[in-house]
């Protein structure tokens, strides 16, 4: 396909025509040099040890877990960007990279986000029976007004119906 390197204007992405034709003539090694790879490798190692730092007591004594999460996610994203840009050569590719990667990235984040109000906050709606089974909520302060905060399970007597010795009693007919 690259034989047609001179006319790229008709591609899926309207913008794909913008890149210079000559930069992609043939499969010229358009990756970085070995030196770049080594630099990226070192950066990745440094970043990894950075996120590993959150494991040490020094970090834990100074920062709350939320800060740690944000920090680690930031580090992960930077690492991912490094890998994508240099190892996967996306830095050197034409504009098709946006068409292909942005929708996928967007959709994956969107999926997780849309699940949050329903699944990620679901323990607001736990039934009494379910709370009986699960451990104490770690922080009930999450519960917003308007949503019933889960009742503390230990204060209530066990459900009247289920009996551990005889689950068969549960059977319908």
């Amino acid at each position, binding site marked *: 396909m690259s034989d047609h390197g001179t006319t790229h204007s008709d591609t899926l992405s309207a913008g794909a025509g913008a890149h210079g034709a000559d930069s992609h003539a043939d499969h010229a090694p358009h990756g970085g040099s070995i030196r770049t*790879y080594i630099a990226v490798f070192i950066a990745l190692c440094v970043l990894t040890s950075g996120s590993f730092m959150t494991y040490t007591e020094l970090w834990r004594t100074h920062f709350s877990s939320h800060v740690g999460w944000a920090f680690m996610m930031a580090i992960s994203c930077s690492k991912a960007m490094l890998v994508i840009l240099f190892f996967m050569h996306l830095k050197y590719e034409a504009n098709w990279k946006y068409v292909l990667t942005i929708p996928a990235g967007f959709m994956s984040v969107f999926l997780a986000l849309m699940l949050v109000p329903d699944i990620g906050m679901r323990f607001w709606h736990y039934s009494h029976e379910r709370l009986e089974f699960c451990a104490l909520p770690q922080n009930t302060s999450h519960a917003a007004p308007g949503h019933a905060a889960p009742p503390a399970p230990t204060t209530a007597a066990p459900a009247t119906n289920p009996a551990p010795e005889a689950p068969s009693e549960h059977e319908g007919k």
Partner: protein
Amino acid sequence: MSEHDPHQHSNSGHSDAGHSDAGHGHVKLEYQPALPLSNGKTIMWLFLSTEIMFFAGLIGTYIVLRFGAVAWPEPHTVHLSEPIGAFNTFVLICSSVTVVLALECARANKAAAAKGWMVLTFVLGCVFLGVKGYEYNAKFSHGIYPKLPRSQIWEKAGIRYVAAVRDRLDQVITEISTDLTVAGGPKTAEGRQQLALDTQAAEVQKKIAKFQADLKQPSDKTEGETAAANALAAENKKLDEIKAQMPLTIARDLKQRVRKVELLSAQQPALFASKNPALPPPGQATLDALAEEIYPPHHSEFTPEGDPHAMKPNPPEGINDRYPWLKLPIKISGGNMWASTYFLLTGFHALHVIVGLIVFAIMLTLTLNASRAGMIENIGLYWHFVDLVWIFLFPLLYLF
């Protein structure tokens, strides 16, 4: 799926205006210039975007379940070791570098060097899997895995938990006792071991009896007696050793445990009398004590004022540590959900690693010169993606 790619690539790479096999059409067709990519690379990127969605489904599930859960176990409770995870991250990063170096060498037509880097990549991938296997084993050996029927890991110690423990103990006792009496020999490994040990013990006992008889014989109290006495002592010791190994002993111990549970029920009638709502709720402390006896949590709480080195180097052993074959239900808050997501995410990631390794193994049989550069690039893209997934999995699973 990715392993199709390298094969495809050879006849549909950038010289794919037509298909090379002879009988294929009369006309070699030309095409409208499109993306500046080979077909192989195009489909690899498209495939990777489907993979992004696949892992988005899995990781998204983990995130929402985790933050929607009321409790989540500490890494140490579930025997998760951050340094090992960090080491594996390092291994994968290295393999990413080696594969990209293999590509550079192949592009420069340095086939031998390319092959060398490729071998290194393969080895690193295997190391990753090995470490993963070691980690899995650490979980399995402590009974941390999802299991049917769904009673392995419990959120908290409650009356139903006690019931599950008792059910399991009953089951074990029945298994062992039926196993020992069943015609045609025992079915389980424990049973067979038991039988073998029984036979051994019987033989040793016979010997002991003989020695004892010998000793009673009036004889010249010479070396013979001392030797016999020594031999007797040795045999007695052997017997003790055998007995120590005997599952029957364990079963006896088990029965003691069961009795303990029953004693508990006598002391704490409320624990088991769930039907009577008039009684006060069962003492959570008692239940927790029981749960801790079976599977003590491996505390790793860092507190600002506490000494970080207070983390117990040798965490206390519970019944489950001493007798792993008992497979008693254990209590880990949020443990089942943790085990489900952990094994799901790492399992699918490991599957991807295995697929990559298979392709690497195939590649190692080829000469990796410039003509294979496209192929290496494609498998490299896949391998970097696998690395990418791990970059997110490591902090999410180990450090959060």
